[in-house]
């Protein structure tokens, strides 16, 4: 928990009203992103990876919102969410959440041209994002 308090103290995460309808909306958006990622993975592997990451990101944000908190919109917000995913992984014993930070990092590197994605990486990202989504859906 102290790690979460740290994120709050640094102003990266803020308290809001817990909002179940919004959290459920994000979970269903995430499901659609994942389906879309699956559909385009051969045609556009990098696009599919980005969508898979975004599905996982929205799912983690939904789990956070259910606790009455959200990531503030500022530089470092994705990283803050990744730190929360690690906290949540420990709290819930859901190992899938440990992989969120890897998705974030690799997606980030692709944005800056430091890497491209192979087929197996995209398949694994979609699988991993799906597991993260289900773990977060269990929290909402």
């Amino acid at each position, binding site marked *: 928990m102290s790690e979460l308090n740290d994120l709050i103290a640094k102003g990266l995460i803020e308290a809001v009203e817990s909002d179940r309808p919004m959290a459920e909306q994000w979970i269903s958006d995430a499901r659609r992103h994942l389906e879309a990622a699956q559909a385009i993975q051969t045609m556009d592997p990098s696009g599919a990876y980005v969508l898979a990451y975004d599905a996982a990101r929205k799912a983690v944000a939904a789990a956070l919102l259910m606790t009455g908190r959200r990531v503030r919109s500022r530089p470092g917000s994705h990283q803050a969410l990744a730190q929360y995913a690690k906290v949540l992984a420990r709290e819930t014993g859901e190992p899938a959440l440990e992989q969120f930070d*890897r998705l974030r990092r690799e997606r980030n590197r692709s944005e800056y041209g430091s890497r*491209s994605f*192979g*087929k197996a990486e995209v398949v694994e990202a979609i699988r*991993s994002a799906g597991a993260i989504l289900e773990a977060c859906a269990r929290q909402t």
Partner: protein
Amino acid sequence: MKPRSELPLFKSPEQERLLAELFVFAQEPLSLSQLAQRTGTSMGGVHKEVERLERSGLVVSKTSGRSRLVEPNRSSPVYTELRSLLTKSMGPEPLLREALATIDGIKEAFIFGSWADPDQMAPHDIDLMVIGEPDPGQVYGAVSAVEVEVGRPINVVLRSEDEWAGTNGAFERAVRSRPRIQLV
């Protein structure tokens, strides 16, 4: 980082760990207390060793406030060779080699990017290329364990043999043209 040298060349395991912290892992000059903490050695032990290394020209130090900050002497004639030996004995190389050896389907694996470039200081993260058809989850799991030991993120790029041989975009060209450390 765990002491797991396979290279019995140094005066003591403590000396090797101290040199590895300075030559392989440090991203900035380190104080004696940081060195003591990172190597699990007493301040007295670190002080004595740093004195000896500085007299022999392998490290340099300067005083900043109340701290003595130590860094490798990059103009030493043996700097490059020593750093390379320590990376092989104490760096991520042996840990990754061991971790990947247990996974089926890997045809080739190497470290690329800044970490593999002897002209660059220890970068924040390590780039790893894995070629073949291993289970990606197993690769990420093995790499995550090494990340904890070396205290920095390891970015994994996974390619099938066909993908690697058949693609030559900007990323692949950059990887092919720059130094690498072969693991598998």
